[in-house]
């Protein structure tokens, strides 16, 4: 039963995954944390951090990881296949009808109608991790958290590689919370 739920959830995430990885985070959060309670907010946040440091798209990484957490190896297979299926079928269709679709004014209208929603989804992913509804897994626990947040934002503005930023903040965490 869980496998079916996993399949349906990740099919949904794949099908509505407009706007790339960060926009998909709010969809994944909505399915995995809010609707099904498979993960806590803190675990979700950890998986995002791990996804940043490992190769591959966040959607695939999170599907494999959460699938395994929820239902073992088969869970990870089912979730990964489910999240890839819509991309495979839709892109095949689009590639096939490529020229006709690309200049279609309805397609353009639909895409521009979804754009503000996608931006909102990215912002909601940030809000969900900044101000979670439960006490578990707060991203911000003290002044140090805000210092790391500010430093990462600055680094990102100067186009420092995100993996470097994540690794540095991990090192900062070990120093601050492990030794100080």
């Amino acid at each position, binding site marked *: 039963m869980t496998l079916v739920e996993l399949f349906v959830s990740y099919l949904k995430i794949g099908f509505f995954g407009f706007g790339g990885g960060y926009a998909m985070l709010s969809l994944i959060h*909505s399915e995995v944390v809010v609707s099904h309670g498979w993960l806590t907010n803190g675990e979700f946040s950890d998986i995002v951090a791990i996804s940043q440091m490992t190769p591959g798209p966040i959607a695939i990484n999170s599907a494999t990881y959460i699938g395994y957490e929820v239902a073992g190896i088969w869970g990870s297979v089912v979730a990964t296949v489910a999240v890839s299926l819509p991309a495979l079928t839709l892109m095949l269709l689009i590639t096939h009808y490529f020229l006709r679709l690309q200049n279609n004014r309805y397609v353009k209208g639909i895409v521009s109608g979804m754009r503000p929603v996608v931006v909102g989804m990215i912002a909601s992913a940030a809000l969900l991790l900044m101000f979670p509804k439960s006490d578990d897994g707060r991203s911000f626990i003290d002044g140090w958290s805000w210092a790391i947040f500010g430093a*990462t934002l600055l680094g990102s503005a100067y186009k420092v590689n995100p993996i470097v930023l994540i690794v540095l903040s991990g090192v900062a965490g070990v120093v601050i919370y492990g030794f100080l």
Partner: protein
Amino acid sequence: MRQLLEIFWSFLKIGAFTFGGGYAMIPLIQHEVIHRRRWIEERDFLDLLTLAQTAPGPIALNTAVFVGYKHRGYMGALSAIMGVIVPSFLVILVVAIFFASIRDNVYVDAAFKGMRPAVVALIVAPIVGLTKGMRWWLVAVALAVAMVVWYFGISPVWFLIAGAVVGACVVARRGGEQC
């Protein structure tokens, strides 16, 4: 068969060396698919990027399907998509299996305490760039969606559908049709 293996291998490399999401892999794809293998041409690549960003799903997968299909049809698309998925799947599976046993370690926990606010910063960073060039009321819509999804836990799917319907309607009205 040889060609399918070549497609699989090329996308395996792309999948294994892209850290940090879709846009990071664009130069890699360009090198492998246009310059090295010559499977598609430079100008097709631009169309491909527009398409891969328009369609739902990870940009990496969408690109793989397009290139694989153009080069070797359905089996090509399947080989390419498998190539992208396999490295990420294996790495994460190993991490998932071993992570549970080290998660409670004091230093691992400390590292994740440090990484959590950094993750939030990486999500916040692109928002400013994305809102540039958007009209103020569209920014207001984005803000409203963010607040509602966050505060009430409503699935963003409904807002995507609403956005698509409104977008299609605006185009229809402009064409003098009823909506």
